């Protein structure tokens, strides 16, 4: 029986210090598990972002789950420490308004019990009940909001958001809200084009993967968003694994032991979606992060088996790039108890 995210209360939890983050069993089952095969294969695997399967993270175009309120508190803490995690070059303000409209309308349509948007021409009224926000403002007039439109709305939306300007047959990272990143810096990458900001990713350039991916992204039209999944692993449920703070969280990479691996090591799934924005012709690129601990994975035998096999077949350079070298073997050993050696059923979903 599929459980909707709407049936679960918002959890009070932390993503730093005492790390009280926890998934309820229902939230584990609705995670967008990224492996649809028993071995690792790098691929872009873009598909249209629609037809939400009930009881999965794809149910709503912009997913809101039990971690929403606590994730937004963590974002506010990151921004207090380092305001450079939100940036927008001057020509991206219109794209900020487009983003605000998209997120507000999506949320109000999908979750009317939590969010509402009332429009009277350019006079808009936004209510976000989980966060206790009630805001009247004029669409297009920055002086009527407490923050610039992109910052305002992404302080109320889970996941990182990159806004890409399209020019000269390329995409440019010209605005973003990035506080839950897997090891890249918006402050450094802002203003770069698609190939420049992907430069540090090994192997994929030689295979022409990024050229094909760019061509696909440029073809994305309004009304037809696309998505893909990416993944890495993180020690502790730490959202803010930024390079900025690497010297602070880096030591935790060496803290995994056979005793603590089940609860301290997390599969970090990124649900990336791609939306053409109407007025600015920019692309919005939300990157939503889902954590599953190794113990969470073990509650779904197929997923634990898959994870075991993917870690075993991962090329060493990819493992290093993802930063798994310190604990990959420990994770493989722990997961081996769930792998019966038999083939798993097709597709990513639980049996």
């Amino acid at each position, binding site marked *: 029986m599929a459980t909707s995210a709407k049936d679960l209360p918002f959890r009070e939890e932390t993503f730093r210090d005492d790390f009280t983050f926890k998934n309820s069993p229902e939230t584990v089952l609705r995670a967008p598990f990224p492996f649809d095969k028993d071995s690792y294969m790098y691929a872009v695997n873009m598909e*249209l972002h629609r037809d939400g399967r009930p009881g999965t993270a794809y149910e709503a175009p912009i997913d809101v789950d039990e971690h929403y309120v606590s994730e937004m508190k963590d974002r506010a803490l990151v921004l207090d420490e380092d305001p450079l995690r939100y940036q927008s*070059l*001057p*020509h*991206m303000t*219109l794209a900020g308004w487009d983003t605000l409209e998209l997120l507000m309308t999506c949320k109000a349509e999908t979750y009317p019990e939590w969010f509402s948007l009332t429009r009277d021409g350019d006079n808009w009224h936004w209510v976000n009940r989980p966060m206790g926000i009630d805001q009247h403002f004029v669409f297009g007039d920055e002086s009527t909001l407490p923050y610039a439109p992109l910052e305002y709305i992404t302080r109320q939306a889970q996941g990182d958001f990159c806004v890409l*300007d*399209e*020019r*000269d047959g390329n995409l440019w990272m010209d605005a973003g809200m990035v506080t839950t990143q897997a090891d890249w810096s918006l402050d450094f990458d802002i203003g770069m084009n698609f190939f420049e900001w992907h430069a540090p990713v090994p192997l994929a350039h030689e295979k022409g993967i990024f050229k094909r991916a760019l*061509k696909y992204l*440029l*073809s994305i*039209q*309004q*009304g*037809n968003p696309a998505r893909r999944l990416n993944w890495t692993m993180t020690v502790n449920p730490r959202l803010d694994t930024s390079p900025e703070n690497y010297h602070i969280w880096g030591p935790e990479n060496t803290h995994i032991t056979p005793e603590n691996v089940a609860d301290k090591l997390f599969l970090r799934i990124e649900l990336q979606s791609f939306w*053409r924005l*109407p*007025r*600015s*012709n920019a692309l919005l690129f939300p990157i939503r992060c889902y954590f599953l601990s190794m113990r969470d994975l073990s509650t779904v035998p197929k997923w634990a088996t898959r994870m075991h096999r993917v870690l075993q077949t991962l090329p060493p350079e990819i493992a290093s790039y993802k930063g798994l070298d310190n604990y990959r073997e420990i994770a493989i050993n722990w997961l081996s108890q769930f792998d019966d050696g038999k083939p798993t059923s097709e597709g990513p979903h639980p049996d």
Partner: protein
Amino acid sequence: MSMLASLDVVVTDVVTVNSLIKRFHFARADGSPLPAFSGGAHIVIEMQDGDTIRRTPYSLMSSPLNTQDYQVSIRRDDEGRGGSLFMHNKVTKGMSMKIGYPANLFSLDKRAPKHLMFAGGIGITPFLAQIHQLIKTNGNFELHYSARNEELGAYSEELKQLLGHRLHVYYDDQDQRIDFDALLSSQPTGTHVYVCGPAPMIEHVIQRSAAHGWPDAHVHFEHFAKAPPGEAFTVELQTSNKKIEVGENQSMLEAMEAAGVDAPYLCRGGACGQCETNVLECDGNLQHEDHWLEDDERASGKKVMPCVSRFKGSRLVLDR
């Protein structure tokens, strides 16, 4: 439009603009707002012309902020394959039609301190939408618009009212010519130039701006090729395992769609690159009509753009 979501619309008005141009107005069939768009965007209009489905791109000319009423202006082309003739002769107020979501291959560069625009004839239409956008954001621009004569200079009166000194109109029959060299050598750093009009005008602006040292990235043009009519031919589609006939007034892309083969596209005018297809075997001549492939790609005989290009010969096998 096969895989992608499209919009159900109703023709709310058809207005005769002059002896060659008609303007078509669309609203959403269910009365809800149409999507906002960006100046320079086009829509692909789907036309059920007897047994044939045509899909032709036209620039949106209405204000991008107007979500109740999309407008396109279409010049009648008596020599073409029939898209404009269908619109002129068959489309009437009240008809239901399907259009694609707006897509933009002729976007303003929002960083530009100034936009210099050159329009020729019906090429005025994307600029009309862009101008609404720039006026709203206090953008800095000037528009140079040339037409054959006053009668065919569609919308020049409205533009004069709206733009004042920012508009410069030139009529061929009064020997008025745009002085491209003077304009291209006097623009402040960071200016972007945009041109939409007849092919020779576009070529001229590309060539003169390069001669004056403008970087390519500052030169924008909307150049939809028209899929020309031609002799019928046969194409084998290897992946789909089909053999299809391409009719005299049909493009390869349309023939694929008619055969139920899903092929990607955005502009259907040889400009966007999305329908680029690998040629597996070719015994004959590919007739390239697009603006996408590089010379070496054409010479290789390995690529073709099925939205506009044709084939003459005995055997063509495509990877589709």
